[in-house]
């Protein structure tokens, strides 16, 4: 029997620079958006995606040929790419947009990613990205990319078992009320759920090394994509504020409050 020819995995990890999850955001006075002059970091779900890719490398060693991070964003998004590189990505692509540009919509991001994938000489076998970004909370990009590519998709992944030789993966997904397992042919788009992996902190030596890793800079026009938003954001407002802070001193008072609201034992 002839040995199975060695197959190699090329992984692409799209990441987004987002307002840090711990920041209490404020709507700006013009009601056009939020005050963005606050701490930013990599979208937490994308950190999980980078971690998953790096773990695949640790498991499959040289069979994971490349881990490439990509972001679409203003010059400062380079920091986010450096974080991905420090965590273990080999190289990165920065599709740079001007600081003043509106954030591109998921469909435009998906089209950009498609254009980048089509430029990769070695191809891309696996795209891993967050299930949603915690700023716009849209949760669309992975599925849109999958649709545009006509590839397999596994959203809300909590476990990914890749079989490189068979060119497939069995993915456990979190769904309403439980879980689901699917078998996906590569190439595949995976979107990460919270419990897929615990992202690592990059070590100082790795942060230093990341500064020397290659970052290819591209523009939307290089890729022939239009990042102009299709939807119009008319305004951004504060949500109705909840008047909380009511306190009681005892369980009896608590029960009285429940009864007042018509809540009793069934």
């Amino acid at each position, binding site marked *: 029997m002839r040995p199975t020819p060695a197959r190699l995995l090329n992984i692409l990890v799209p990441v987004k620079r987002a307002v840090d*999850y711990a920041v209490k955001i404020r709507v700006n006075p013009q009601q056009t958006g939020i005050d963005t002059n606050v701490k930013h970091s990599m979208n937490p779900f994308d950190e999980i995606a980078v971690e998953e890719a790096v773990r695949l490398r640790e498991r499959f060693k040289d069979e994971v040929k490349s881990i490439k991070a990509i972001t679409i964003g203003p010059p400062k998004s380079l920091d986010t790419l450096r974080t991905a590189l420090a965590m273990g990505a080999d190289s990165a692509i920065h599709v740079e947009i001007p600081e003043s540009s509106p954030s591109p919509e998921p469909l435009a991001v998906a089209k950009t990613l498609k254009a980048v994938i089509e430029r990769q000489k070695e191809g891309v076998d696996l795209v891993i990205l967050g299930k949603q970004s915690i700023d716009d*909370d849209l949760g669309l990009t992975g599925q849109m990319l999958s649709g545009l590519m006509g590839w397999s998709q596994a959203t809300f992944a909590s476990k990914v078992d890749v079989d490189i030789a068979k060119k497939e993966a069995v993915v456990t*997904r979190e*769904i309403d009320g439980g879980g689901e397992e*699917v078998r996906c042919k590569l190439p595949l788009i995976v979107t990460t759920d919270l419990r897929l992996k615990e992202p690592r902190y990059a070590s100082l030596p790795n942060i230093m090394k990341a500064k020397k890793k290659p970052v290819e800079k591209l523009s939307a026009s290089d890729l022939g994509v239009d990042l102009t938003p299709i939807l119009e954001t008319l305004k951004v407002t*504060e949500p109705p504020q909840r008047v*909380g*802070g009511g306190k009681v001193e005892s*369980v009896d008072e608590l029960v009285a409050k429940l009864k007042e609201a018509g*809540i009793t034992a069934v």
Partner: protein
Amino acid sequence: PHALVFLEHRQGILDSGSLSALTAAQQLGGKISALVVGGPDQVPGIVEKAKKLKGLDSVLHSTSPQYSAPVPEVLSPLFEKLLTESSPFTHVVSTTSSAAKSLIPRVAARLNVPAISDITSLVHDAADSSTTFTRPIYAGNAIATVRAPSSVSIKFFTVRSTAFSAASIQEGADAETLAVDPVDVPDSPTQHLKTTIAKSDRPDLGVASRVISGGRALKDANTFASTLYPLADVLGAAVGASRAAVDAGYADNSLQVGQTGKVVAPELYMALGISGAIQHLAGMKDSKLIVAVNKDPDAPIFQVADVGLVADLYEVVPQLIEKLKK
């Protein structure tokens, strides 16, 4: 306008989130068709129920063994067919379920149109064929008002079910039913292997009118169950959990309430030993009455709670059960 509403179902029952999506679709002010897909043993029963729903003009249904536990790769071609061949549809509407979240963006991208997730209100302007939506962003800490202009030929959106009441059955309603041929996908790149739904005798978290939620203070899975379940049973409530409790393994991840878990808005939300991180508040702050019990008087949950009690939940809960039973 003419909306196509994706009606989901499970075990012979129409999904209540889909019924909220139907209510949202009615606010467009035009015709409404529902789409039911499923296996041969599922579709006839669901269609019988669906055609009695208030406000529906027609029920499209498509039956295939491949639709019994469908993956987006298999369902997308059916949607594409319905939405391209001289399609009358101007809007595609679904609830923000895990199935729709996977499917809707895939279909939208294939038709080269954007999609709008988890809307909480909408207004359609028939004069200029634009639809304006509001939706929470930044974990509900801001509300965006977004317009899909007439250039978006088909407007895809998913609906936050807590923002709309469920459409009801109407006496005498009998919408027209139309069978749609399934689109065979012989070589789907994705195969469904199995689904595991966490079994519970309690009400479903997503639709329950009362929710009892526990956080990290519940110590372990046994303590979580032995503390919360008796109280939930007395109140006929669903059980929820904070991310911390789920991450620590105290509760199944399907019980997580928050920005990335379930969004709930029950009559009563009782948070026990939950500090109230922004991400948790995003999932429950629209509840009608919020009760919080926490040892820490500075816990952020008290800022949104209508009724706060600074105390040890292990002393409070048994007393509460006893006093409620009286």
